[in-house]
């Protein structure tokens, strides 16, 4: 039976006084894959460990299903965890590693064997059951670690950067495998990573943490298109959103002495209050394209260009030391020093308050 995980006002202060997490409210719906993402030291692993019961919480309440688990030992919480370095017991074979949680829960031998074999088949580990972890490749170890979590049929999976030890290609494969497996099993999952790409591709929803404080939580598309503050805007998306200084002037915004009309959407009304004031203007690289017609434009000199194949990332100086990255088509090569005319999709431009960093909408 899968269950919701609800964190209410959860805080963590370590004995040395470090405040790792502050007032965290987060609800993971049953069967959902929630990715908790943030830079190193943001408290994301602490959140996971508190949910697992490996770390005591200082304030607040954690519920798994209807039970408050604050004071429960990890083994009483009915969660399974995948560790960053897998933590496979090195002296046990794959079979014994998979069977360990079942043994610990007193599952009878025939059932244990059956469940281990079923899990091994699911993860294509059937041929490796007798091997020791050191005789496995990184990807195989990763699967065993997943298997050890799955075999228990817990209410919640907790995953702590499980892909960070794999090479890029394997990581891409495993991203898809884990997502597919999670959907198939339908078990509530908290997945911690520092990699925004993993967050974007895997999460049903994403929770972005910074300095132990939740910045925004929502579906990947919402975080990408409507970041609530400068931090989320810069953290989600690669290459990151261009954040440049601008000044609102009536119905226009001035960026590096160049004028763009304010978007005719919801933020226009809010921006009216900012007339004559500085704002941070957020432009996604793909919303800056090569100008062909009579679109709204910015222009500048190309400083450098990276060809990625189908597209190229061009760094363009708009003036006043204002540099933006644009994701342009790879067909027409741009060289350093070229003058570039950029069409701006003004409807998608985001504006942020300079003082608070919050989105103006």
């Amino acid at each position, binding site marked *: 039976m899968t269950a919701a995980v609800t964190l209410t006002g959860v805080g963590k202060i370590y004995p040395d006084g470090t405040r790792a997490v502050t007032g965290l409210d987060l609800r993971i719906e049953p069967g959902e894959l929630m990715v908790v993402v943030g830079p190193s030291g943001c408290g994301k692993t602490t959140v996971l460990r508190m949910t*697992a019961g*490996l770390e005591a919480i200082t304030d607040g309440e954690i519920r798994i299903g209807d039970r408050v688990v604050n004071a429960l030992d*990890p*083994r009483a919480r009915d969660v399974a965890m995948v*560790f960053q370095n897998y*933590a496979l017991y090195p002296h046990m074979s794959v079979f014994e590693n998979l069977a*360990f*949680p079942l043994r610990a829960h007193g599952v009878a031998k025939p059932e244990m064997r059956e469940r281990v074999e079923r899990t091994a088949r699911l993860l294509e580990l059937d041929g490796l059951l007798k091997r020791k972890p050191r005789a496995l490749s990184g990807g195989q170890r990763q699967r065993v670690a997943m298997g*050890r979590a799955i075999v228990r049929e817990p209410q919640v999976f907790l995953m702590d950067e499980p892909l960070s030890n794999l090479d890029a290609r394997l990581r891409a494969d495993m991203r898809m495998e884990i997502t597919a497996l999670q959907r198939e099993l339908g078990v509530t999952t908290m997945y911690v990573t520092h990699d925004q790409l993993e967050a974007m591709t895997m999460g049903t929803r994403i929770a972005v943490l910074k300095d132990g404080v939740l910045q925004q939580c929502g579906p990947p598309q919402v975080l990408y298109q409507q970041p609530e503050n400068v931090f989320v805007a810069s953290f989600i998306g690669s290459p990151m959103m261009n954040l440049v200084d601008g000044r609102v002037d009536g119905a226009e915004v001035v960026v590096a002495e160049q004028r763009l009309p304010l978007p005719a959407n919801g933020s226009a009304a809010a921006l009216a209050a900012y007339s004559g004031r500085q704002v941070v203007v957020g432009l996604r690289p793909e919303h800056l394209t090569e100008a062909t017609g009579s679109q709204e434009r910015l222009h500048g000199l190309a400083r450098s260009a990276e060809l990625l194949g189908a597209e190229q990332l061009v760094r363009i100086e708009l003036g006043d030391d204002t540099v933006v990255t644009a994701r342009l088509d790879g067909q027409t090569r741009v060289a350093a020093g070229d003058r570039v005319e950029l069409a701006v999709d003004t409807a998608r431009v985001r504006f942020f308050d300079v003082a608070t960093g919050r989105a103006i909408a």
Partner: protein
Amino acid sequence: MHRYGRRELFRELGLIVAALIFCLPFYVLVAVSLKTDVQTYTEPLSLPRPPHWSNYSEAWNTGGDRGLVHSFQSSLIITLTSVVVLLVLGSLGAYTIARHSGAFSNTVYVLFVVGIILPFHLALIPLFVAMRHLGLVGNYAGMIVLNVGLMMPLTVFLYTGFIRALPRDYEEAARVDGAGILRTYARVVIPLLWPITATVGLLAGIVVWNEFFPALVFLSGSRYQTLPVAIYSFWSGVGERWNLIMAGIAIAVAPVLVFYVFAQRHLIRGFSAGVKG
């Protein structure tokens, strides 16, 4: 990669000479142990021709108070039991110290380290008096308690260093997997401690096996003489029969040597882990 030059040649020659110097006492030991009484004095350093193997059986059956065979047995019982008790208690103690950071466990750790430095001879007389009152003089139990106590500081030090370097993830994984403290310790921690257990076991085994002074004091007058004490009394008993004494020493040293040859790698690995700690 360095080329094999003159520097390396001299270094190797130096090491070979050092090795030969270390081997010399062993050569003397074995050579003399295989000679007749006369040869022992007329040609002590030559190869024994023909080897006089009966020295070994004579030393085995008649050495010490009741023959080396009994002392061998005593040494074996004392060493094996001491080592087992030491490993069980030492690893448990070190595990607790290593995994509970706090002022109390740090203090306990420091006390153990101080115990390595303090010479046991300082406490010899009060210890002897106390142990005699407890009925722990002149028997196996007393000797085992004494050895465990003497070796415990080093054991805890080595284990603690090793455990501190061991990632906690395995134990945490076991806890989340549903294992209690005992199952985690028995099924996960103990197997992970194998390298340091081998080191400590061998080291303590060698020390206890070779121990002379504590055994002389705490087993004096009992039937449980250990090998080193037996060989000492052997010397006073047989007078100047060096060939028999050497045969006795060879018998005493053989088990240690055999162990060492098989376990060198473990010893070194465990030690470096303890020092890194």
